[in-house]
């Protein structure tokens, strides 16, 4: 064997060649950090700085404006209806899909994902074509004095559409991983169907479910395109917070749209915080078990 002794003997040789040289590493970190600073950190900080640029008084005034308050209320109402609806759907869909075998499951899964690949604007248009004055159900709805488009029900429907897959998508893989053994054991031991569901199935997916709920909620409160199309943007009546931001933006008051935007940015920060917490939590529980 004729090998240069330096390469066999040196303990440094092998690890050194599975790593980049130090300057490459720090260059890569630098470029990635700069990109993240420009695209992620600066936009976030800028929201708050601009919001307070005209002073704290102007900030509070912008938030206490009655149309802004009604936008906050509407946003909470819409999320308060659409998120629970999608949670119930997510639980039902994941139970059927993860615990049972049936024909057409793949098609069902594709349909559940569909709202993610439809442009929100197109989603809004669909509801206008269905429930609007000239829509398919328009004449019937008008005859019964039901207003959906340019009213709260339309905003709720559009929001449910765009946030449709969030909870189901989180729950299906987790429930599939859990299998059926625990539920079967509970049933054999005499537990009823609901009992088994509440005490066995639900606790084991709770973190995943919460994860889906916060993502669903963030999107529900922040949706713009779909809601813009169906809401009619009636100030004080059908403006959600994101629509309110746009209206203030067009009014050329420099600080007001940012003041309202801080509420949505805070929502994003809380969402990120909870998300990180849940990821840490579910990782911790997986570890020893």
């Amino acid at each position, binding site marked *: 064997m004729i090998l240069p002794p330096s390469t066999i003997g040196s303990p440094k040789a092998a690890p050194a060649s599975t790593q980049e040289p130090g300057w490459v590493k720090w260059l890569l970190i630098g470029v*990635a950090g700069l990109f993240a600073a420009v695209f992620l950190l600066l936009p976030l900080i800028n929201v708050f700085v601009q919001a307070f640029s005209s002073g704290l008084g102007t900030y509070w005034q912008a938030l206490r404006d009655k149309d802004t308050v009604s936008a906050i209320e509407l946003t909470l109402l819409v999320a308060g209806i659409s998120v629970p609806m999608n949670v119930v759907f997510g639980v039902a869909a994941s139970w059927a899909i993860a615990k049972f075998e049936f024909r057409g499951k793949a098609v069902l899964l594709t349909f559940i994902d569909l709202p993610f690949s439809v442009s929100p604007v197109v989603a809004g248009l669909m509801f206008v074509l269905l429930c609007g004055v000239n829509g398919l159900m328009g004449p019937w709805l008008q005859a019964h004095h039901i207003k959906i488009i340019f009213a709260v029900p339309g905003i709720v429907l559009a929001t449910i559409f765009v946030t449709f897959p969030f909870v189901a998508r989180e729950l299906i893989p987790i429930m599939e991983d859990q299998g059926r053994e625990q539920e079967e054991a509970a049933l054999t031991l005499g537990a009823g169907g609901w009992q088994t569901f509440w005490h066995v199935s639900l606790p084991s997916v709770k973190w995943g479910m919460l994860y889906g709920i916060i993502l669903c909620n963030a999107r529900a409160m922040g*949706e713009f395109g779909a809601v813009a199309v169906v809401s009619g943007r009636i100030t004080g009546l059908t403006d959600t917070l994101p629509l309110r931001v746009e209206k203030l933006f067009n009014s050329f008051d420099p600080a007001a749209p940012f003041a309202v935007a801080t509420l949505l940015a805070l929502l*994003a920060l809380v969402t990120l915080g909870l998300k990180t917490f849940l990821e840490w939590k579910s990782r911790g529980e997986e570890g020893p078990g």
Partner: protein
Amino acid sequence: MNYSRGPAKSNPLPGFGLTLGFTVLYLSVIVLIPIAALALKALHLSWQELWRLATNPRALAAYELSLGAALVAALLNAGFGSLLAWVLVRYRFPGRRLLDGLIDFPFALPTAVAGLTLADLFSAHGWLGWFLVPMGFQGAYTRLGVVLALTFVGLPFSVRTLQPLLENLDKGVEEAAAMLGAGRRRTFVSVIAPTLLPAVLTGFGLAFARGLGEYGSIVFISGNLPRTEIAPTLVVARLENGDYTGAIGVALVLMVFSFVLLFTLNWLQGWSSKFQRP
């Protein structure tokens, strides 16, 4: 068809009929019937009419910008997103956890706020615009602004598709390549990069699809100008003018784009799963 009876023989769990029934009903009301409404409304139009509306010069310009901007943004994300994923997985440095947490920020931030703050940052009086605009980099109220906004909203897709794959990458393969005499650059190009390629392509596709449908952030950064009009903006503009048929034409084209992408992505994910260890 009775679903509830069939599987029950081998499966003692209750509630199949109820949950599947509810799932199908809810899916139909929220998703399928609205899609059918769009399809039915489109069927009322003649093919020539639909074709004319979907392909008039204004619509063509909007598709061009939509596709072009989404493509450039997805390419930027494929590059910088892969770099971010690599840096986050392979290196330890101060602020790494913060950076990792920030990656999902575009998912969590309402797009209206993203558009608002990006338009301000890149405008002539903004923190980035005051020196970029004199250099000729007009990031607000231009086509470039559209690209910037789409880059922002698509960023998490690239990073988050690649990250788990990088974490599970078998370091033994790299060590073997190094032992066999490959330099670090060669190991990266011929051993690591080919394994990552399918995930990078998937992330690219997801970011591209997201970009094609995006509307909220564009409203703010495009400045509502004719030359910055993208397809979703055109749908809204036509709707606001009461031009329902015109909106339907563009919407159908957008749907075709997204379905083609959806199928390509499904195929890509099937392909990339072959490269992942169980």
